[in-house]
């Protein structure tokens, strides 16, 4: 039995601490917004925040997350009002949409640490894969979220 806190709610779970956080979020807690793409920390589709930092949850055991505050896409902005989501909506970023929760979580963490990143810093900071190739809109949305100065509150 272990306890984790996700989006402000505590969950007591009967689960092996070695299970990747991704599968606990998706299957034990039912938060399907966090996606599985590679299972090896390579694509970022599973990105969540652990104590505010972007973490690839497929390569992070639930045991490691005990005692931390976890935020998933569902907890970032409940109705999609987080400034990064607003910028994403404005730029019309998603195609298939599959990578987007992870992208948004990565971008939100980046902007929290660095409210006005340069293009290079954006490129170094967002290393997730979008197979649909929405990168230029992602870059644009991050810039505008940064400009609006609202991100990273």
């Amino acid at each position, binding site marked *: 039995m272990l306890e984790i806190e996700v989006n402000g709610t505590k969950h007591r779970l009967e689960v*092996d601490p070695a*299970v*990747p956080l991704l*599968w606990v979020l998706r*299957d*034990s807690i039912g*938060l*399907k*917004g*966090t*996606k*599985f*793409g*590679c*299972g*090896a920390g*390579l*694509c970022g*589709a599973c990105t969540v925040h652990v104590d505010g930092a972007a973490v690839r949850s497929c390569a992070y055991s639930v045991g490691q997350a005990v005692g931390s505050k976890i935020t*998933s*896409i*569902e907890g970032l*902005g409940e*109705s*999609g009002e987080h400034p990064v*989501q607003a910028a*994403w*909506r404005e730029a*019309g*970023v*998603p*195609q*298939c*949409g*599959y*990578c*987007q*929760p992870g992208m*948004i979580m990565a971008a939100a963490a980046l902007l929290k640490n660095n409210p006005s990143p340069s293009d290079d810093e*954006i*490129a*170094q900071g*967002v*290393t*997730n*894969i*979008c*197979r*649909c*190739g*929405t*990168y*230029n*809109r*992602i*870059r644009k949305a991050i810039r505008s979220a940064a400009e609006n100065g609202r991100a990273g509150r």
Partner: protein
Amino acid sequence: MKEPVLTRRGFVTGALVTAAGVSFTLSLAGCKDRTKLPDDGEPGVELLSWVVIHPDNSVTLRVPQTEIGQGVSTTIPQMLAEELELDWSTLKSEFYDPAVNAARENVYVWTAVLSSHSAQTLFEPTQRAGAQVRTMLIRAAASRLKVPEVELEAIKGSIRHKPSGKELSYASVAEAAAKMPVPDPKVVKLKEVGDRQLVGKPIPRRDVDAAIRGKIVYGIDFELPGMRFAAVRQSPTFGGKLRSVDKGSIKGMPGNPEVVKIKGAKVGYNAPVPEGEDPDIWAAPVTMDDAVAVVADSWWQAKTALDALAIEWDAGPHAKFSSQEYMKTLAKQARGDAPVVVEAGDARSALAKAVKTLSAEYSYPYMDPAPLEPINCSAYVDGGEVHLWTNSQFPDDAWHIAHSLCGVSPDKAHVHILPAGGGFGRRLQNDFVHQAVQIALACKGTPVKLLLTREECVRKSYYAPITAARFEAGLDGAGNVTVWTCSVASGTSAEQSYGETRFPFQPPNVRFAYKRNPDSPLPFGWMRGVGFTQHLWMNFGFLDELRLLTGRDVPEFYRSLLDPSYIPADLEDREIAVARVKNHLKLFDFAIEKGRWHAPKGRGRGRGLAVGDTSYYPSYPSSTKAAIVDVSFDEKAGLRVDHVFLAVDAGTVINPDIVHAQLEGGIAYALTTALHSEITVENGQVQQSNFHDYPILKLDQMPAVTIEILPSTEPPASIGEDAVPVTIAALVNAIADAGGPRLRSLPIAKILAN
């Protein structure tokens, strides 16, 4: 129940002829079962298979394609709603039901996500269906109000009586409308282009909000109470067989794991095949090897048990297969006497007479389309019924697999379509459907979800075919191309000779040879841009090599090749060829100007240009596109793609923002394909397994992009795949122009690193 029938004529000529087909299919739908409850149980009245009007006056539109990111959940409602006069904000949509499509003899016209066909094929039928439904609603209102039809108009979900201002909601007349005779789709009046409210507008995608909140339920997210989860290991070699599996090796592991053996099979074909066509030419057989599934209470438990499971494989006939060795075989075939598929003039003597000749060999590796959402499918078999929840790109075929494999009558197979996290052709092969149904049959009464790991997806995909090509061409003293020959050999593939033969340029003497090896071990799959992606860059690369011999300037050289007078007088279908080069020339000139071809470029910079279409055969309608790619190249710093300009003439554009997105995405896809993608096989096994050794372009490598759409009122043409072939073609020539190597094989990043 009959299988959907697709006529070659309908396929070939797209929108125009399909519209005529609709009068048949719609009126047929009209005599059968016209009023029925929508599948989700929400009450409403169905009108002509496309529209359901609910009591609260909200409207559901049927989308006859799987959403894989191409935007059909927005563009098809735009087309349907244009003539229907709906309130866009209250509109809902649902995916079509393949069983209904079959029962109504392909009423949805084009349901496979294939050939970038959604707008091209559905524009006319959906607009006409919208106009028919509107007409029926107006007629019902006219008889209710006892006024002439001309005094009525449809506005935002209501019928308004113009003289009195009285309004009736669609919902209030829907039942009566459903009983009205179905108007002839050829006679209903469509709006003038200038009056359109939805078509042509950059309306935001209807699924944006759900996407950014993580609320889209993709195939992988679907779940039912009591569901069990399957992890799958397929034969590591192609054509291998399962020898034994030791169930004892996972006994007592958590999640009550149970082992299900999946039998290899020929699943079907990966495209709808028109009546009378040879499926082995039109499409490629989808074969699937033996596999083992472990089914458990959670997927992680299933995967963990599968990893521990002792499985023995018989490696089969291809145990020693090496893609590197195989490439040598193909190159030899291309050099030898591959069967000639197209010939004009006398290539042999023209080569002998040429002032200069050149030959070169090009090649293309195996590739995996690699959509980001791993392959999955949910299935449930019980009580003589089968249900599937899938994001297959070919749901009609999934439905066929479900009922035939379960041996139930076709109307007892229910396919529920879910959105996909990308497709790019991979999901046209329904191996995963076959596997999921086999597992569900072994677990009757329990819903199961199959999900593959990324490693399994990479190692057992359906691959763009490995290809070798040999070009030889000749020039006259003035630097004109007098003869062009190309000989191609490829692994297992659908007939893709169009990749070499459908180059728009028409030298007077040509010879094209093409050899497929249908029994090579790796199965073939469609991959975004298909044969054009494999070949256009080779054609342009070799053409550029020739041009360099002449010293002629790029635009002048291409213009001379696109001059109608260059097309041989005795060419078969010459008129079609002339119209084609004229389209190319128009777009080419547009691109040269808008893409600033003549703008200065600095030291170490290179610029490449390509123009093309995706016209598979002479009467096949296609959009035309041109790319200008700018790169920086330096022996030490390597290659950087700085800018990609793309111009496209795709006829009427349904949604310019979605077209831009598809083209931007196509450019990224092209760059991954050219720079990074390669599947190699040694000892019968794929060497790559995940994104570390099968990399995908990331944000730091994404160039600036400029897109120009040529305004047009012609019927819509393809978009989804179109950026890929021209971008790769322009890229290889830009690299040569920048002083980099002449690239005759891919992937570029690997070649430059060596």
